[in-house]
C-alpha cells in the first residue's frame, strides 16, 4: 500500500525547473529517504507534496486520494505534515505554547474566546506527552528563540507530531547537529518509523544508509534512481551524480565505514 | 441613453485618464517592488509637480516648466529617500509606510502654507488649445495631447527599463529579493535612482493632468488611491500590468460617469475587488517576493 504517490510531478519558475516529471510511490509504514546534491529539488519536492507550491504539471495522491490542489491545512488534517530545513517554530512562544497551539486544534479549543488556554485537562495531558516524546520536559517554559539549535530541532518535530500525522516529511532534521546529536536523531527517526510513514531528506549519508528502508535519488529535479540502501550504493548512476559535486559524502565510501 | 458619439468620446476620455493614472502607478509599483516600500507620499509628489509647474510657468513658460518641474520633484524624491526612507530598509514595512504617511501630511500642509488652500487652474499651452474635428466627433486638443504625452512618457520609461544597464539592474531588483544582493554596492544608487525616477514620473503626470484637474492641496490623493487599486488590478511589480490596470480603471471610471454618475469613483473599487477575488495576484502578476 502506498502512502504518497506522485505522477509526472513538475514545477517551473521562469526558466528553472526545480522538480521535473517525478513519478514515485512511497510505501506506507516504511522509512523512505530522499538524497541528492544541493539544488536537486528535494525541498521543492516536499513543498509540492505538502501544498506550499502548486505544481505546474502532475498529480499528488495521499492514501489513494488526489490531493494535488488541496491547501496546506487540509493536507495536515488528512495526516500529512512536515518539518522544515530552515527551522520553523514559533520563536516568540514558549515550548509549551508552541505545542499547545498544535494540540488544541484537535480538541476543538481554538475557537474558545473566554477562557484561559492552559486550563483544559485533555490538552495539557497530550501536550505533556508530546513534550516528553521529544525530550524537552526541562524546557517547557523556555521561549523557542532561547533554545539551543538541537532543542529547536526537537521542538520542530514535536510540533509536527502534535498534529498526529500518518505521514511525516522530515526536511534535514540533522542539519546543524553534531555527530552525537545526529546519531541520536537518527535513532529517534527510526523509532518514529515504527508507528508512521516517514519521508526523510538528509545529507548525513551514513545515517541515511543505516536507517532507511528505501532511498530515492533526485538530481537536477529528476528522479535518478530508487531502491534499497544496498542497491543505491551499487548504482553507477548515483555514484556519477555524486562524483560530479564532490561536496557530499560518497555513498560507497561511507558504506565502507558503516 | 447617451448617443454613440458621447460613448466614444467618454471612452476616449477614459483611455486618456487611464494613461495618466498608469504613469503614476508604474512609478508607485517600481518603488514597491524594488524596495518593498508603499510610498504614501507618491501622491504628494504628483501634486508637487503641478504646483511647481504652476509657479515656474509664469517665469519660464509652459514647455520649460514641463521639463524643469519633474526634474526638481525627482530631486526631491531622491532627497526624501536619502534623508528618511533609507534609514528604514530592512525594518518592518509598517514603519516606512507610516513615515511616508507623515511626509504626505507635512507636504500637504506645506503646500497649503506656500500656495494657499484655494484651487488653481493651469491653462493649456497654446499648441493644444481648442478642439479638433476628428470627422466622427469633435474632441479637445488638450486631452489628445495629454494622452499622447503620457503614452510617450510610459514608453520612454519602458525603453529605459528594457534597454539600458540601469534598467536591467532595476528589473533584477524587482523580480527577486535574492538578486538585490547581487547588485551589491550598486544597490544604494539603484534605490535612489528608482525613487527619483518614480517621483519625476508622478510629477510629470501631475503637470499634464493639471489643466483638467484643478490644482489643489488634496489632489495627490485623487491620483494615489487609483494607483493603489491599479497595482492590485495589474499585479504587483508588473510594469505592463500597471499600464493595463490604469487603462481599465480609466475606462471603468469614464463609463461609470455616464451610467452611475454619483458613484463613479466607487466603480474602480468594485473592479479591484473582483480582480482580487478571482485573480489574487492581479491580471499580469506573478508570484511575488512580497507575499
Amino acid at each position, binding site marked *: 500500500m502506498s502512502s504518497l504517490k506522485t505522477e509526472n510531478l513538475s514545477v517551473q519558475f521562469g526558466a528553472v525547473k526545480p522538480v521535473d516529471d517525478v513519478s514515485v510511490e512511497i510505501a506506507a509504514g516504511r522509512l523512505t529517504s530522499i538524497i541528492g546534491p544541493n539544488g536537486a529539488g528535494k525541498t521543492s519536492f516536499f513543498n509540492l507534496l505538502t501544498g506550499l507550491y502548486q505544481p505546474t504539471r502532475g498529480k499528488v495522491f495521499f492514501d489513494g486520494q488526489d490531493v494535488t490542489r488541496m491547501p496546506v491545512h487540509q493536507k495536515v488534517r488528512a495526516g500529512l505534515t512536515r518539518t522544515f530545513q530552515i527551522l520553523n517554530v514559533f520563536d*516568540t512562544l514558549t515550548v509549551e505554547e508552541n505545542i499547545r497551539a498544535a494540540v*488544541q*486544534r484537535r480538541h476543538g479549543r481554538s475557537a*474558545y474566546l473566554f*477562557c484561559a488556554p492552559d486550563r483544559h485537562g485533555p490538552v495539557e495531558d497530550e501536550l505533556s506527552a508530546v513534550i516528553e516524546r521529544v525530550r524537552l520536559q526541562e524546557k517547557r517554559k523556555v521561549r523557542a528563540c532561547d533554545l539551543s539549535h538541537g532543542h529547536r530541532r526537537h521542538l520542530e518535530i514535536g510540533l509536527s507530531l502534535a498534529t498526529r500525522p500518518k505521514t511525516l516529511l522530515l526536511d534535514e532534521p540533522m542539519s546543524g547537529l553534531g555527530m552525537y546529536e545526529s546519531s541520536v536523531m537518527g535513532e529517534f527517526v527510526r523509532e518514529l518509523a515504527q508507528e508512521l510513514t516517514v519521508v526523510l531528506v538528509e545529507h548525513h549519508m551514513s545515517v541515511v544508509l543505516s536507517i532507511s528502508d528505501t532511498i530515492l535519488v533526485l538530481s537536477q529535479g529528476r528522479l535518478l534512481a530508487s531502491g534499497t540502501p544496498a542497491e543505491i550504493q551499487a548504482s553507477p548512476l548515483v555514484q556519477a551524480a555524486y562524483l560530479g559535486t564532490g561536496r557530499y559524502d560518497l555513498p560507497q565510501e561511507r558504506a565502507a565505514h558503516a | 441613453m447617451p448617443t454613440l458619439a458621447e460613448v466614444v468620446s467618454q471612452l476616449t476620455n477614459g483611455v486618456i485618464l487611464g494613461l495618466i493614472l498608469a504613469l503614476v502607478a508604474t512609478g508607485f509599483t517600481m518603488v*514597491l517592488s524594488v524596495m518593498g516600500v508603499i510610498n504614501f507620499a507618491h501622491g504628494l509628489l504628483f501634486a508637487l509637480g503641478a504646483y511647481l509647474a504652476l509657479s515656474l510657468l509664469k517665469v519660464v513658460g509652459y514647455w520649460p516648466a514641463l521639463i524643469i518641474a519633474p526634474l526638481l520633484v525627482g530631486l526631491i524624491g531622491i532627497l526624501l529617500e536619502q534623508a528618511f526612507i533609507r534609514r528604514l530598509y530592512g525594518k518592518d*514595512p509598517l514603519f516606512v509606510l507610516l*513615515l511616508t504617511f*507623515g511626509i504626505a501630511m507635512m507636504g500637504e500642509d506645506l503646500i497649503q502654507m506656500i500656495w494657499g488652500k484655494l484651487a488653481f487652474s493651469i491653462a493649456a499651452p497654446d499648441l493644444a488649445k481648442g478642439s479638433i474635428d476628428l470627422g466622427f466627433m469633435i474632441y479637445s486638443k488638450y486631452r489628445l495631447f495629454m494622452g499622447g504625452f503620457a503614452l510617450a512618457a510610459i514608453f520612454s520609461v519602458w525603453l529605459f527599463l528594457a534597454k539600458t544597464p540601469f534598467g536591467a539592474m532595476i528589473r533584477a531588483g524587482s523580480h527577486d529579493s535574492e538578486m538585490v544582493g547581487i547588485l551589491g554596492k550598486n544597490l544604494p544608487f539603484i534605490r535612489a535612482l528608482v525613487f527619483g525616477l518614480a517621483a519625476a514620473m508622478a510629477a510629470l503626470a501631475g503637470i499634464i493632468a493639471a489643466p483638467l484637474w484643478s490644482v489643489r492641496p488634496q489632489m495627490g490623493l485623487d491620483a494615489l488611491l487609483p494607483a493603489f487599486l491599479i497595482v492590485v488590478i495589474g499585479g504587483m511589480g508588473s510594469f505592463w500590468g500597471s499600464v493595463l490596470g490604469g487603462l481599465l480603471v480609466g475606462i471603468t471610471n469614464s463609463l461609470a460617469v455616464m451610467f452611475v454618475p454619483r458613484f463613479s469613483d466607487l466603480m474602480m473599487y468594485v473592479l479591484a475587488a473582483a480582480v482580487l477575488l478571482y485573480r*489574487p495576484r492581479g491580471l499580469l502578476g506573478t508570484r511575488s517576493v512580497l507575499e
Partner: protein
Amino acid sequence: MTRQTAPISALSRPTITFGLLLGMFVVLPAVLQALGISFSLGTEILIIALFAMSYNILLGTTGLASFGHAAFFGSGAYAVGIAQNYGIDGAATGLAVAFAAGLCAALLVGLLVMKKRGIYFGLLTLAFGQMFYIVALRWDGLTGGETGLTGLRRPAPFGLNLNDQLTFYYFILAIFMVALWVIWRITHSPFGSLLAAIKSNELRTQYLGYDTARYKLAAMAISGALSGLAGGLYAWFQYAAYPQNLFWIESGNIVILTLLGGGLSSFFGPILGAAVFVGAQDLISSYTEHWMFFFGLIFILVVTAFPNGLPEALARFASVLRRSSGSASEPASSAHVAPARGTAP
C-alpha cells in the same frame, strides 16, 4: 481536572493593572479640573483608547498592520447617526448598531484581504478603507455628504443625563472597562494564543492544520466590531458623525498612537498612546491651524526615533541618565501602565 492552581502572582498581576487603571481614570476628571481642562478631553482619551485597544487585536496580537481602521470606527459613528435619523435612539440599541456596523464593515474588507499578509495587507486595507469615505461623501441622502450627520443626541440610559460632561465621562468609562476586560480575555484565550502563533509564524500555523485566513478574518471581525463600538461612542461624544472619522488620516493616527504607546509589545500600551496623542492633538490644534504639519512631524519622529514606543524610549533614556549621573535611582519605566504582554498568564 485542572493540573494546578495558578500561582497567585500570575493571576493578580492583570487584576492589579486593571485596578490601577480604573483608579487613575476615576480620579482623572479631578486632575483635569485642577488643570482647568475640560472633562471632554478625558472622554475623548477613553474612546480613542478603546479604538486603539481594538485595533491592537490586529496589530499587536495577530501581527497584521491594518491601515484602514478608520473605516470601521467611522462606520460605527455613522450607524449611530443613521439609526437616530430613523428614530432608533436608546443606549443599548445604539451600542449594538455601532458594534454590528463595525463588524459588517470589517467582514467586507476582511473577505478581500484575509489571505494576504505584510505590506500587501497594509496596501489593501488602506485602499478599501478609503472606499468607505467615498461612500459617505457620495451617498448624501443617508450620510449627509460632506457635512456629515450633525445634531445627534446622546441617549439617556437609566434616566442619566449624559449631556452633563462628567456623567458622560463615567458612562464611557464603564463601557471602556468592560470592553477592556473583554479584549484582555480574548487576547489571553485559546483563540488569542492562536492569533499569537499566526503573528509569530503564519506558515507554521498552517502546517499545524489551521486555515489561518479564517482566524485572521475572525480577528478582523472582532477588532472591527469593537472599533465600531468606539466609533458609536464618538458619535455621541461629538453629537455628530463626520466623513473625517472615516478618513485615512484617522487610520494613520490610530496606528501611530498604538506604536507610540508601545502596543507592539504591551497589552495596555495603546491606552498610554491614546492619552499622549489625544493630549498633543488637543494642544496642537488649539495653537495652530497647521495641525497636519505637526502631525506629520509626529509620525516621522515616532518611526525614526522610538518605533518601539514611549515606555521603551523612556526606559532607555532613564538608563542613559542613570549611567551619566552614576546614581542607582529607580528605573523610570512606566511599568504600571504597560507591563510586557509576555508576563501575563
